[in-house]
């Protein structure tokens, strides 16, 4: 599946991408508002805060594979309405008009990703790959560069990476630090096409050719993280800080994203627990210095995880200013989770949103 994901880039239109969010997100973490600095799921610890590793219990923690698929609610509704459409000749023109109207009101958005990871109490490695195409048509231009004529914005985010992390507690039990080295492959530009532009097909062909020639932009980067962890009998508190992309990660390539700026992320977590259950509240502020120049609602993530007897997890949160929900079933050899969240592509709320459902299936060994 990872190979299929990378093949997709060669047939993709120009691409566009994630900013302060991690390049790979676990669905249950997304359900918890995308909070990952004070608590994260499996390989997300390596990607978001490796300093979480030393507080996990046994030395060998996890070896496994995870596959995720996602789709926007509107896209699912569109497919359902097309599948239910009357196929008779008399209705075919009506169905065609309905399809055109639907394309101009409902975006098409799908995603697939996969990861493989091996995690211990002091380190781990993980590899991931994801692709997330998005297509949106506007009757009279998109909110950023529309000029009053029908237009289409095509985006495709392709990310891949290999993380190797190390972590250790300090002399004090309540303080740990972690370090990740990462190799990233990124392809994210976007293509805007005015439907009235007669040169559009030629332009699309040229840009596709450029992308196929240059492929993904690649680079090596480093993250450093710390975690303060005060553990009580029933209440724990956590304070995390993560410096991503130390010194900025330079990427190869002349087009698209050529570097990832250094960002500082901080997180606060509070856990109420017994020996079997836990309720974890978390708040993450990503990109504290606002290197990406975004509004606060796109940088603040809030979440709650309710873990019952280690088998069932329920999550809620706020991601890009909208509620998120998640549920997971964690059995010995496999784990399944489902989440819904809203991602905002625009710079402000309700400009260009996608309500997305994500499903994940994980198989592996938890020690």
């Amino acid at each position: 599946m990872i190979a299929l994901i990378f093949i997709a880039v060669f047939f993709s239109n120009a691409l566009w991408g994630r900013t302060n969010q991690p390049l790979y997100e676990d669905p249950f973490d997304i359900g918890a508002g995308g909070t990952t600095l004070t608590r994260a799921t499996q390989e997300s610890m390596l990607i978001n805060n490796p300093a979480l590793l030393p507080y996990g219990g046994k030395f060998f923690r996890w070896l496994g594979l995870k596959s995720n698929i996602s789709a926007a609610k509107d896209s699912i509704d569109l497919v359902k309405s097309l599948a239910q459409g009357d196929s008779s000749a008399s209705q075919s023109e009506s169905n065609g008009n309905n399809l055109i109207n639907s394309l101009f009101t409902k975006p098409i958005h799908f995603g697939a990703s996969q990861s493989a990871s091996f995690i211990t109490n002091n380190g781990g490695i993980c590899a991931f790959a994801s692709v997330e195409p998005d297509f949106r048509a506007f009757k009279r231009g998109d909110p950023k560069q529309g000029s009053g004529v029908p237009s289409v914005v095509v985006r495709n985010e392709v990310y891949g990476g290999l993380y190797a992390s190390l972590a250790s507690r300090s002399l004090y039990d309540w303080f740990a630090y972690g370090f990740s080295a990462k190799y990233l492959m990124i392809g994210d530009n976007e293509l805007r096409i005015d439907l009235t532009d007669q040169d559009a097909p030629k332009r699309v062909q040229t840009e596709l050719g450029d992308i196929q020639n240059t492929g993904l932009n690649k680079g090596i980067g480093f993250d450093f993280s710390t975690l303060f962890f005060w553990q009580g009998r029933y209440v724990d508190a956590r304070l995390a800080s993560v410096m991503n992309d130390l010194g900025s990660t330079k990427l190869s390539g002349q087009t698209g994203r050529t570097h990832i700026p250094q960002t500082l992320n901080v997180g606060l977590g509070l856990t109420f627990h017994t020996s079997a259950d836990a309720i974890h509240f978390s708040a993450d502020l990503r990109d504290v210095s606002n290197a990406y120049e975004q509004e606060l609602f796109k940088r603040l993530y809030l979440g709650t995880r309710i873990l019952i007897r280690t088998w069932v997890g329920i999550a809620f949160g706020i991601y890009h200013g909208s509620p998120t929900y998640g549920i997971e079933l964690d059995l010995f050899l496999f784990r399944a989770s489902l989440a819904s969240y809203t991602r905002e592509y625009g710079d402000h709320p309700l400009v260009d949103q996608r309500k997305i459902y994500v499903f994940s299936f994980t198989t592996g060994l938890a020690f």
Partner: protein
Amino acid sequence: MSSLSRQDWHFDMLRYQFIGILFWLCSSCGQESLVSCKENESNNQCVEQTPDEKAVIALNDGDFERARTLLEKLIVDNPNEYFRYPRLAAVYAAQAGFDLLSAASLDSNDDNGQSDFLDSVGKFLPSPLNYSKQEYQTYIEKMNKAKQTLLLMPSDHRQKGEKFYGSGAQFQLTLYSSALSVMLLNQFAPTGDTALDEKRLEEMTVDDAVQIITSLKDAALNSAATNPQISEKINSVLAKVDEKEGASDEEKLRAYLEERKNNG
């Protein structure tokens, strides 16, 4: 049950009740954005869209009056930011009843070049048969405003090139110029109408005829660089009008319209 196990049981029940209340509280948040500003609600904590974003969203949602109000104010405040002009022109054209989405697929080579240009454009315009004279006049004024808004832009901003809005502005000027000329003509000889209404045609004055012909010439000129085929079709119409016998433009135009309907 011992007092200790009863205590554990109570603790478990309290815990699950707390989880249930938390579940209910969080799920009652719904799915809508919690930070967007709602109309008619004052909330300093909400994150507001920019006026430009509001205008384009209103334009796409079909709320043309709101889009018009926002864009007119933005243009008055920032007259040199020309990217808003084609958006406002699209608003006026939509308020003139023009269906831009359908017209964007207008191909000047329809029907192997055999289609009548006036009928082709007329398909995307409101028919005067469905409106009073006053209402239709309002639509004509809106379409004229759409054209004039685009003409306020410097010509180098109305071309394909570095400006992201240049191509859209150029296309709209071609389309609205053509649409305006057809709408002026439609007042007296609605396109698509098989029977020519002599009474309606008699209402056409000399000034009306001059306005129609001037508008057709403008449309031909505005489309010459961007869509020579449309320009050629318009010039063809003008040539046919000019060929007709008559002492004035009004007589020639009347003769052309009568012949067109007789042949149609």
